[in-house]
């Protein structure tokens, strides 16, 4: 516990800026993963325990695409499409068989997915730590805001995540697709009676959630080191985010992710050993006081 360091940082604008920017990029990445998790839960009613592995897969696919084409744009696109397709296949072949089974089977299937993907990554990309390096067009001198250093890539990440959040919000609330998805989440039987193929809605949502996780993995690749098993810690964090924000609520995921990101970056100055503890206490408090989360709706009947 070093509250002096935290106090010193809070009284110094440059430190505030630096910590806020690192907090915001963790939050941005966390949001992309958590948004997929929460969407899948909201529509399909299952928690995809393997979601972190999809993030990992995205990072590695992005790495390969980047090394092959030398373009970060192509790398992110390849990662989101590739992982999205993987999610689609996984959902159609395996996940759909356990929607009506009990939680035990859902857990086991996801457990198997994590084991298999971790080893597959080991076989294809090797077990050692890897890093992508900063893409060329982000190798500009960092910005100085109020004396704090903010790398250009950080700014890009934050803006990209906010744009995606905006697009998600628009698609879910203002378009026909969004209406269909919300209908399927609200009452799947009625939706299928109205002639909509809920199977494909489920598959589509799962694939989309996977694509978001893959995109997050590729976007994280320049600033995070990669190793098999890297998906598990982000899975736990994005779960905490979805609980705090409210299961099934995308805007809740955004609020929760930014909150956790900031707590993490400022907490690492003041009480590095206790950051995880704070997150858990926050989650436990939410679960006891308001189980539906900050922005979540009451659970569906």
């Amino acid at each position, binding site marked *: 516990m070093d509250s002096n360091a935290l106090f010193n940082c809070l009284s110094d604008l440059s430190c505030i800026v630096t910590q806020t920017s690192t907090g915001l990029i963790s939050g941005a990445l966390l949001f992309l993963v958590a948004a997929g998790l929460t969407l899948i839960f909201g529509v399909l009613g299952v928690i995809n325990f393997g979601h972190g592995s999809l993030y990992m897969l995205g990072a590695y696919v992005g790495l390969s695409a980047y090394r092959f084409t030398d373009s970060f744009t192509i790398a992110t696109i390849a990662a989101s499409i590739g992982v999205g397709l993987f999610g689609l296949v996984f959902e159609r072949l395996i996940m759909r068989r356990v929607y009506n089974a009990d939680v035990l089977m859902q857990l086991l*299937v996801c457990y198997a997915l994590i084991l298999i993907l971790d080893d597959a990554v080991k076989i294809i990309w090797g077990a050692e730590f890897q890093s992508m390096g900063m893409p060329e067009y982000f190798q500009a001198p960092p910005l100085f805001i109020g004396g704090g250093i903010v790398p250009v890539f950080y700014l890009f990440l934050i803006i990209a995540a906010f744009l995606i959040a905006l697009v998600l919000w628009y698609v879910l609330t203002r378009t026909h697709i969004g209406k269909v998805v919300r209908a399927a989440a609200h009452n799947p039987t009625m939706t299928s009676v109205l002639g909509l193929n809920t199977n494909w809605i489920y598959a589509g949502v799962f694939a989309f959630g996977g694509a978001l996780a893959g995109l997050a993995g590729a976007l994280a690749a320049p600033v995070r080191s990669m190793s098999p098993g890297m998906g598990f810690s982000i899975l736990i964090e994005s779960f905490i985010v979805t609980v705090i924000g409210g299961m099934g609520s995308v805007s809740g995921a955004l609020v929760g992710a930014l909150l956790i990101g900031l707590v993490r970056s400022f907490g690492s100055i003041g009480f590095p050993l206790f950051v995880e503890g704070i997150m858990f206490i926050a989650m436990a408090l939410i679960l006891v006081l308001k189980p539906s989360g900050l922005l979540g709706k009451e659970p569906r009947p």
Partner: protein
Amino acid sequence: MKNISFKKELLIAALCLAILIAIPFFTSSRVTLDFVIRLASYGIFATSLNILVGYGGMVSFGHALFFGGGAYAFGLLMQKSGTSIPVAMLGAILFCAAIGLVVGAICVRLKEIYFSFLTLAFQMLFYSIIVTWSALTGGDQGLTGGIPRTPFWGINLGDTTHMYWFASVVGILCLLLMRYILQSPFGYTLRMVRDNADRARFLGVDVWRVKLYAFILSACFAGVSGVIMAIFVSGAFPDFTYWTMSGEAVFMIMMGGLNAFIGPVVGAALLMLFNDVISRNTEYHGLALGIIVLIFALGFKKGITDFIQQAYRLVTKKGVQS
């Protein structure tokens, strides 16, 4: 009625124990003895989880918290305070009960999938505490330096045969105790809560309390399994509390079958055999295990003992009580 039927179980337990105790007189194969010692640990661990999963309908995915908790508490007590093994063991069980009380009080009120994820999250919190607090726990390296195996009551656990007998006796005793608890009125209340919580509440059962007691009991037994493992490997390692350990336990239950009391022990034995074969033949342990899990979860959809019960029912043409 209950007491009469329990006599049968006492008899079976005594018979199993007699066979297990006799084994070292016929074979001195280290592999067999080691297998039984590890089976005692994993068997208790899986059965304790089944109190929650099979009898309570609460699918915990963070049960390794108590396996590791027991192992670390025991190891630290032995290393730092130098008490005798039984006292340290009791301390480890009390530690698990305390953690179980806190975690359980928060978790058991939650719906199934929330419950699974929250138990997983608490376990990972414990894991990260173990890894970061390296001054006390040795961090990544684990609790090394050996746990002193001070002889007590004429038992020297440094000796493999003594360790084997100790593990067998503790294993059978714990299984018997769990069986007794699950066949008691409390065990049947737990089943009722699993099947219809609303009706149980209507009948005046305090659902939250029943679930919490089951959670704490299950934590205590998992602690014992961790203690056996800690004595056996003479240390405690972060892997004990890692999520894969919980995953394996869940799979042991599923593979063995959660409807028969002995199912988890059968599953534990099978998974240990699988693991031995897999790690002897390939370095990609996760890949092979993942495929086996998928085969069981999507193909068979049932555990081994479920198939045996089915066959038994076909042969005798009568129902079997679980």
